């Protein structure tokens, strides 16, 4: 019975670590502009980090052929010819990590032309560290009586 109770406690703690909303630090949304240089077959910079609620403007500059930029999750895209840079403006209202990729066929390695948009802090990293710590703790505790 005691064992069952402690297991229940452990599971509750695990759920709490996984799902309890973190105290969100009050960050005033700001406007951010990124100039992304697109060339075969990469973006630079290829990783963007913004806070939730920020208004993001991406200026896509193509350096060789026609490239695009499509953001998963947000389902928005922009296309730029060399010499005609294009801008994409949106509000990053969905937290998480999103891939963006070239959506205009730009050559043989086109499918590998990807980048990443991080919106908000990566809380799942900390949560999973917490869960792992909890699991280790649980295993060590449950093993003690037998030894």
């Amino acid at each position, binding site marked *: 019975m005691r064992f069952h109770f402690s297991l229940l406690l452990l599971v509750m703690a695990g759920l709490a670590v996984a799902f309890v909303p973190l105290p969100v630090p009050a960050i005033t949304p700001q406007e951010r502009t990124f100039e992304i240089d697109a060339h075969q077959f990469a973006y630079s910079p290829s990783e963007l980090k913004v806070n939730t609620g920020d208004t993001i403007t991406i200026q896509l500059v193509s350096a060789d*052929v*026609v490239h695009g930029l499509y953001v998963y999750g947000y389902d928005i895209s922009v296309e730029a010819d060399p*010499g005609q840079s294009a801008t994409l403006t949106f509000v990053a209202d969905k937290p998480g990590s999103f891939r963006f990729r070239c959506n205009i*066929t730009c050559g043989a390695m086109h499918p590998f032309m990807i980048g990443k948009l991080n919106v908000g802090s990566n809380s799942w990293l900390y949560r999973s560290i917490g869960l792992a710590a909890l699991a280790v703790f649980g295993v060590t505790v449950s093993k003690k009586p037998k030894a």
Partner: protein
Amino acid sequence: MKRAELISRILIVVGILLAVGAPLFFWARTPLIHARMAEDGGWNPDVIQAEVGKPLHLKFTSDDVVHGFAVGQMDMQSVDILPGKVTDITLNFDEPGIYTFFCTRWCGLNHWRMRGTIEVSGSSSDPEPATVPLYVSLKLDLDAPHDAPVVPNGKPLAISGQSLETNLPIDQSAEYYRSHSPYEVFESLQNTPLTDGQRWNAVAYFWQSNTTSESLANGRQLYAQNCAACHGENGAGNGVFADDLVQAGEASMQSMSGAMNMMMQAPVDFTDPRRMLGASPALLQGKILRGGMGTGMPMWGSIFTEQQIWDLTAYIYSFQFEYEK
């Protein structure tokens, strides 16, 4: 009865086969034209035969990246050619001659080399006499240095020049505007009581009054599509290919035996007043029409119409003058 049924069955099958097969047969007979980056061969085939009055059916596909298709000096919407897709185009030619078709989406440093010709045979219903471009009739040397010895301190303002210009001795004809550089017009105002700055403003207004907002808008669009990749979106000669052109300079020189002066160069900076204020519209027309002869500047004469080139020159001067919005 059985016999009649058999015949009707055969007729139906043959009819269906014909209805489906005949268009497919004719579609398959149209050769597929492959588009590749110029480095990998460009258009294949790059010479197409056609006849006046007969619609020309073409099929295009791309083997690498996004390309586009348009025929020079023809009033047509350019068509995108995408890898893995077949694009059908039907063209009609009213006049015989050799037409140039070209890629309309930038596909690398040598994008502009991606050109081909359509040879249209037949008889002309209304032969137009060929006209000589203005730079030829003026006997301009396109490669001679043409720097203005004096330049204004800032961007001349057309709006300030407007009030001054009304009673100035400037020839208002289009020929005068086209054959004179801003510096020459500035010099012609020497005997007026105006200050240097006022004279430049008057020149700016004179340049503005010789163009229209439609012409500028058209020039801006042509510039963005065809020029900005090298000359830069703001005209500063720093487009995305500018560095590549300079780098290609040495190599391209070796490939052209004997022509030491003719190698890929850095694109011209249109914001440089010395160079631009010393150039007349006719000179710029010549440079655009003929191209840079091995410098990396393409020849646009077979692609742009005369009006399009004038629109472009008008737009290029707007990097020097502050026009009214």
